[in-house]
């Protein structure tokens, strides 16, 4: 299995609080991605990174920010959590970009905003 660790695996938080999810990789892959998975919507890209300090928005980036200060870590922050952000969040990594080869996904983080 690719070395991807998401933390925490489960979290319950209150509306309006900030939340940070962490993705840590040991593969030294250039590309890192954050997705959310919701019933009926499949996998939707939030943000992705193509290098240290290089990030770009995905299709559902509103309300989320990311940071990548070193190759192995990609952080997803919900500045002020809302109930609509209750979801399962997946981190993925790819050596040369998802459209050039395999993307490896983490185990997911289940976030509940109450």
């Amino acid at each position, binding site marked *: 299995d690719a070395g*991807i660790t998401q933390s925490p695996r489960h979290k319950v938080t209150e509306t309006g609080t900030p939340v940070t999810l962490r993705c840590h990789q040991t593969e030294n892959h250039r*590309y890192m*991605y954050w997705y959310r998975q919701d019933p*009926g*919507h*499949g*996998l*939707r*890209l939030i943000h*992705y990174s*193509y290098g240290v300090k290089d990030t770009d928005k*995905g299709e559902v980036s509103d309300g989320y920010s990311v940071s990548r200060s070193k190759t192995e870590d990609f952080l997803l922050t919900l500045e002020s959590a809302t109930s609509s952000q209750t979801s399962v969040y*997946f981190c*993925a990594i*790819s050596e040369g*970009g*998802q*459209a*050039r080869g*395999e*993307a*490896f*996904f*983490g*185990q*997911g983080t289940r976030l509940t905003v109450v």
Partner: protein
Amino acid sequence: QQQVKQSPQSLIVQKGGISIMNCAYENTAFDYFPWYQQFPGKGPALLIAIRPDVSEKKEGRFTISFNKSAKQFSLHIMDSQPGDSATYFCAAGTQGGSEKLVFGKGMKLTVNP
């Protein structure tokens, strides 16, 4: 606008049967078409992928068929097994452009014993 449309949303087959799932795409620039498999509680994992220079690719019981003119591709699972029960996502991407894939909404496959 959904760029990759997956059908059906769910499928139930008997053990030993053939599972067929389909995807249609809109962007003619797409040139990489993978299928990802996801078991409950796990992240998706690449199952099989095809590039448009071939019309079919087979890996064991899994076959991708690609129809460029129709802008469609499909996944066939032969001799389906209960262990194949999972959610399957098709996706599409452009090798020379974006570094990201566009995923379909997923299809839940149940294989009854």
